[in-house]
């Protein structure tokens, strides 16, 4: 079972994830329309690229955008969640070994303490993000079962990963569950809101181009995100 999941299972889920994301990305870009979106994307490419990069940069930088600075608690939860969610799957020592074996790609691996902090960061942040959904009226009104499902889907591999890390309970059982949940997560990425892994960058780039080309980017120093 372990071999099945870490061999063909892993290849399949990574394949679905990547191909799915590429399709989502291509469909998104193909669906952009200079006149309907009212952004002359190709006529002012330089201003557009500058706007796109600024728009992405200030929002992936913790406290980089005013939106992050005005809501510091959310910012800590957001980055606490996302830093681990991006780094652990790719750079945890145990993962780099499997990736090396299955796909022949080798990444540098994380120091164990850093990996622990990041993993706990994901789980603790996910807990508070769920709590935030329940407690804050302005978030509760926007939240439905799908929002909790997505959060659970994303956090579950980390919870089970930590169970394995500390060898709590039946190690080999939880390891299989962990791998299975990780692969379910990978497969669901292109089909759910988790596609924001790619679409975040494309959407931010689009709005950045909008401001960079049409809404003032060619007038002054650019938008103060």
């Amino acid at each position, binding site marked *: 079972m372990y071999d099945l999941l870490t061999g063909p299972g892993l290849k399949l889920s990574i394949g679905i994830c990547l191909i799915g994301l590429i399709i989502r990305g291509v469909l998104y870009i193909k669906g952009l329309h200079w006149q309907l979106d009212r952004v*002359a994307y190709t006529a002012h490419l330089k201003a557009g690229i500058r706007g796109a990069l600024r728009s992405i940069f200030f929002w992936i930088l913790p406290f980089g955008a005013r939106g992050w600075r005005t809501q510091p608690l*959310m910012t800590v939860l957001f980055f606490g969640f996302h830093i681990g969610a991006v780094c652990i799957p790719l750079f945890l020592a145990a993962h780099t070994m499997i990736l090396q074996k299955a796909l022949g790609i080798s990444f540098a691996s994380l120091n164990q303490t850093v990996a622990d902090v990041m993993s706990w960061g994901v789980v603790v942040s996910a807990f508070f993000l769920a709590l935030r959904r329940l407690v804050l009226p302005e978030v509760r*009104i926007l939240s439905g079962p799908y929002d909790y499902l997505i959060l659970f889907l994303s956090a579950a591999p980390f919870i089970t990963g930590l169970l394995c890390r500390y060898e709590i309970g039946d190690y080999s059982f939880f390891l299989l569950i962990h791998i299975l949940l990780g692969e379910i997560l990978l497969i669901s990425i292109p089909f759910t809101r988790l596609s924001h892994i790619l679409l975040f960058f494309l*959407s931010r780039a689009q709005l950045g181009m909008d401001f960079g080309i049409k*809404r003032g*980017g060619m*007038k002054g120093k650019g938008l103060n995100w």
Partner: protein
Amino acid sequence: MPEGTLCNRQPIQTDEALKTLLSDTGGRQYYQEMQSLPVDTPLLWETIQKTCRSRIRTWLSMCARCGMCADSCFLYRINDRDPKQVPAYKIQSTLGEILRRKGRVDNAFMQMAMETAWAKCTCCNRCGLYCPHGIDMGVMFGYLRGLLYQQGFVPWELKIGAGMHRVYHAQMDVTDADFTETFAWMVEENEEDYPGLAVPVDKVGADIMYTVNAREVKHYPEDLAEAAILFHLAGENWTVPSRGWEQTSLAMFAGDWEACKIQVESVYDAMERLKPKRMVGTECGHAHRATVVEGPYWAGRKDGLPPVESIHYVEWLAEALRTGKLKINPEKRIKEPVTLQDSCNYVRNHGLKEITREIMSYIVEPGYFIDMSPNREHNYCCGGGGGFNGIGLYRKQRNKALITKRDQILSTGAKLVIAPCHNCWDAIRDLEEEYRIGIRWSFLKPLILKMVEIPEHLKPEE
């Protein structure tokens, strides 16, 4: 159920239809008919299929429902943080729902969507600056307004406004003759004080083609005089077009995209006809947005730019002061606490944040200018943008919305508010009338006129 005689899906195309709709005081019959206006759901869905593409669809589906947009919205903040005023909720429960139901929505839904689109959003686009995914709900509300307009669910005043553009190529019933005659009359009134003052109409190849807001012609003709005098004092080679002089677009507020195109093309035609070096527009925010920022797209211009370089009045003024074309008498600079309203339409949405502050540095004695907080591209809407000022049905909501600006002004301690935007100017006037906080408000032109030095050769002979 048939469509109403006043409230229906047909745009206003004739003067007669305009007058009939106008005679329905306050839109009483219009709104009554709206109660039974059927929704053409196949048309709604067909329109969405044709026009709603990956940007908006992705925005709606990728929204993480995180609520980070809530605090960015002044209407959410001022309405006791009502969760139903969270931008993401407002757009998901209207446009998002129409898409999920494939256009199968009923009359009650459309009326709710109308109120949301015009009384709960001013399309100020501030939320777009606070969404991690870069979702601009103001843009989506603009799109939703187009769908609602097509179905006849549009506030009475804006149906009229859009009709005015179709019939008069202006936001009100001001004819081309009214425009040139009023301008000429205003110049006559002032030529004794400013010898040689003239309004050159349809001059080909001028450096500047000036465009205005029709209500200056109808209600504030002194604004035309001030513009003429300042161009005259600056020694500008300028002109106004006898046709295509109206820069505004209530059609944009209404979501009548066809009328937007008709209107902006009338201005672009004037540019093509008169071949000026540049166009300068009056102190209006949405007029600039319509003609300079969005207009090129309505007119199908692939470079996203008007036929000639087009600038806002504040850009011309800053340049005239910077280059010394206009000189300020330092004695006459403003020596009282003064603040500045950043118009969403040309500051957040066209980057002119430093230009107005440069003007302040010339006309305000150092130490007297106090910025509102937040300011520049993060400033709050005046409270009356996007058509909100003009809709009687939503006056109560609009008046509440003004409180944000009232409190922003109060905390600066300034008694004078400079508002180089018609909509902001109106909203600030109304907030003073409503809440009596003892402020004055002004466009830039009258202030400059009081402090500008008149060159010797332009002074009247004693």
